[in-house]
C-alpha cells in the first residue's frame, strides 16, 4: 500500500475528521487533507491529486451519497476509490451506496485495525480488477 497516497477526509464534524486522521496516521498515512462537506470536497477533488476518499454519509447540504454520485459522473474522478463511513450497516443504505459505486464502507466507531482491513480490501479489489 502506498503510504504516501493523498487522502481526502470529508466530514462536517471536525472532531471526527481529527479521529480518522489520527487513525490513518497510526497506519502510516500522513498525506491527508480535509473538507467539511460534499460542496467543499468537490472542488478539492476536481483540483486533482486525491488518491483515496474517506467520506461520512450523513452530512448537511450535500450527503456522502450525493458526493459519491457526483464523483462517479465526473470523468476524472469516476474511478477514485471511496470508503464510506456510516453509523450503521443498514442493508438498504449500503446497497444504495454500492450501486452508486462505493468501494467500501466502515461502521463507526472503528479501530485502526478495522480501517486497515477496509483499506486493504478496497485496494485489493481495485488491483484485481485492473
Amino acid at each position, binding site marked *: 500500500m502506498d503510504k504516501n497516497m493523498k487522502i481526502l477526509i470529508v466530514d462536517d464534524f471536525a472532531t471526527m475528521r*481529527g479521529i480518522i486522521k489520527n487513525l490513518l496516521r*497510526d497506519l502510516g498515512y500522513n498525506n491527508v*487533507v480535509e473538507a467539511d462537506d460534499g460542496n467543499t470536497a468537490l472542488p478539492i477533488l476536481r*483540483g*486533482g491529486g486525491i488518491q483515496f476518499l474517506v467520506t461520512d454519509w450523513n452530512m448537511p447540504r450535500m450527503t456522502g451519497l450525493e458526493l459519491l454520485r457526483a464523483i462517479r459522473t465526473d470523468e476524472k474522478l469516476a*474511478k477514485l476509490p471511496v470508503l464510506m463511513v456510516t453509523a450503521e*450497516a443498514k*442493508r*438498504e443504505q449500503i446497497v444504495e451506496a*454500492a450501486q452508486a459505486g462505493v468501494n467500501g464502507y466502515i461502521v463507526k466507531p472503528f479501530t485502526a485495525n478495522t480501517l486497515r482491513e477496509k483499506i486493504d480490501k478496497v485496494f485489493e479489489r481495485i488491483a484485481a480488477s485492473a
Partner: protein
Amino acid sequence: MSIDADDKILQDFLVEAGEIVENLGGQLVELESRPGDYDLLNAVFRGFHTIKGGAGFLNLNPLVELCHRSEDVFNVLRQGKRMVDPSLMDVVLQAVDVVNAMFQVLRGGGELAPVDTQLLARLEQLTQPVECVPQPSTAPAQVQSPADTYDLTDQEFEDLLRALPASAPVPQAGVAESSQSDEITDAEFEALLDALQSAPLEKKQPACVPAVKSVSGEIVDEPPSAAPAPTAPVIAENTVRVDTRRLDDIMNMVGELVLVRNRLVTLKAAVDDEQMAVVVANIDVVTSNLQIAVMKTRMQPIKKVFGRFPRVVRDLARSLGKEVVLELQGEETDLDKNLVEALADPLVHLVRNAVDHGIETPEGRLVAGKPGAGRVLLAAAQEGDHIRLVIADDGAGMDPEILRRKAVEKGILDSDAAARLKREDCYGLIFLPGFSTKNDISDVSGRGVGMDVVKTCITRLNGTIDIESEPGKGTHMIIRVPLTLAIMPTLMVTVGAQVFALPLTCVAEILDLDLKKLNSIDGQRVVMVRDHPLPLIYLRHWLSSDGANQPWPESGHVVIVTAGAQRIGFIVDSLIGQEEVVIKPLGALLQGTSGLAGATITGNGRMALILDVPGLMHTYGRRERHSEVA
C-alpha cells in the same frame, strides 16, 4: 491512538459537540412552535447522530446510548410516524439536560455514570410509531424495534455485492439467507461489488444502474493510473482552530505595540524630521489596523449566549404558569470572546428577572388589557466601538414611588433624599446591595443578591447599564459594553503631580466651572449644572498623599462622570487629553486596591493609574460621608 492524541480529541469533541448540544436546546424549543418542520427535525436528528458518532470513538458509552435512543426518536419523527407533543418534548429536553450534564462531567475530567434506565425506556417508547401509515415496501423493516436489527456481516456484504446487479429479479442464495435482517454483512457487500463490477464487462446488462456502468466502465476501459493529475490550485481548508491563550498572547503583544506606537507619536512631535514623521504616521496606521485585525480574531457571535435563552424562558414560564414569547435580535453581532462569556451570567439573570418580575400572569395581563402572552425581547447591536444589548419586556414596569418607599424602608435613603431622586435615579436603586422589590422572595430570581451582582459584572467590563421603565407598559434594560477588554479609550488628567486615566465610558462631559459658588446638600458639596445639583469631589482629596488638607480650588476643570444612575463631578488639576491605553494589571502587592482598575504607560513614557470610577465612589464616597458627618 496515543493517550495525548486521545485527550486532544476529547477536548476537541467537548468544544465542537458542546456547540451542537447548545444548539439542540434552541432547536428543540423552536420545534414546539413548528412541530412539523422537517428540516428542523432533521437538524436535531443529525445533532444527536453526530454526537453519538464522536462519542463512540471515545468510548463514552452512556453518551452513545442516550444519543442513539434520542436519534431514534427523531428518526421516527422526521419520517412522520409520530408527532411532536409536549410530553415528548419533556422527555427529549430531559435527555438533552442529561447530555449537558455528561459534558460537564467530562469537562471536569470525570467518568460517565450509566444513563437512568427509566429515561432510556421512555425514549424507547417514543420510538414506537403512533399512527402507522401503511408503507408496504418498507414497513416490515421500519416497524422492527432497534433491538431486532443487527449489523451486516462482511460475508453478507460480499454476498450482497455479488447479488446486486440482478437484485430485483433474481434473488440469490446468499441474499435470501440473510435477507431477514435489514443490515448488510461485509461478505454480502463484497459479493455485491463483485457483481456490480463484473456486470458491465459483459457490456449488456439491462438491470444495471447507469451510475454503476460508468464507474466500472472507466475502470475497465482505462489503465489504472496511479500518478495524480497535475495539481490544480486546491482549495485549502479556510478555518483553523486556535487555542485562545495564543490569541491572548497576541493581543497582549499588540497591546505593547500600541504603547510603543503612542510613545513614538509623542516623540515625533518633539523631533522635527519629515522622514521620521512619515514613518511614524505609517506605523501608526499599521498598528491601528493590526489592533483591529487581532481584535476580530477574538470575536464571537453573541448567539453563543443568546442560544440558551429560548430554553431558559420556556422552562421558567412553564414553572411560573406564564406565557412568554421570546424574541431575539442581532444574534450575529460579534464581540470579544471574553465578553461573550462574561455577559452570560448577567444576561441570564436579567432575562429571568424580566420573566419572573416583569411579565404578569396571563389573567393579570388580560385584566390590564394586554394580550395573555407576554413578550421579552433580547437584542444586540454594534454602536461604534460599543455593543448595545437590550432586554425589554412588556410587563408590569416599575413604579418609582414604590422604589422610593422601599429605599426608605430598608434604611438606604432618608425620606428627603428619596423624594429628591429623579425618576431615572429611582430605577438605579434596584442595583444597590440588599434592595429587592418583592416582599415574597421567589426561588427564581428574587433573592435580592442578583441585581447588584449584575451591576458589578457589567461595570467590571467597563460597561454601563441603564433602565427605562413605565408602570403598566414594561421595562427596558440597556447594557453598553466595549467591543474589547484589553484596550480602553481614556481621558488623561493630572491630580497633584500624578497622571490618572479615567475610562471614557464613564466620562459624560467636561466643564470649566467657577467654584466659588458652591452649595452644600446633605453635607455634600454641589454645584448647580443646568438646574440640577451635581455633587462635586476634589480628586486630590482622595488620591494624593498630601491631599486631605488641600483647600478647594477657586476654579477648575470638572469632569462629570456617571457611575450607574449617579452623576458626579470630579475636580482635577489639569486635563491632558484623550488616549487609548492598554490595561496592565497592577502588581501582586497592589492587586485589589479599590478604586484602581490597573495601570498603563502613557505616550510620554510615564506611568498612569487607571481609575475604576464605580469602585472609587464605593470606597471613598462612603468615607467622605462619614468624615463630613463627624
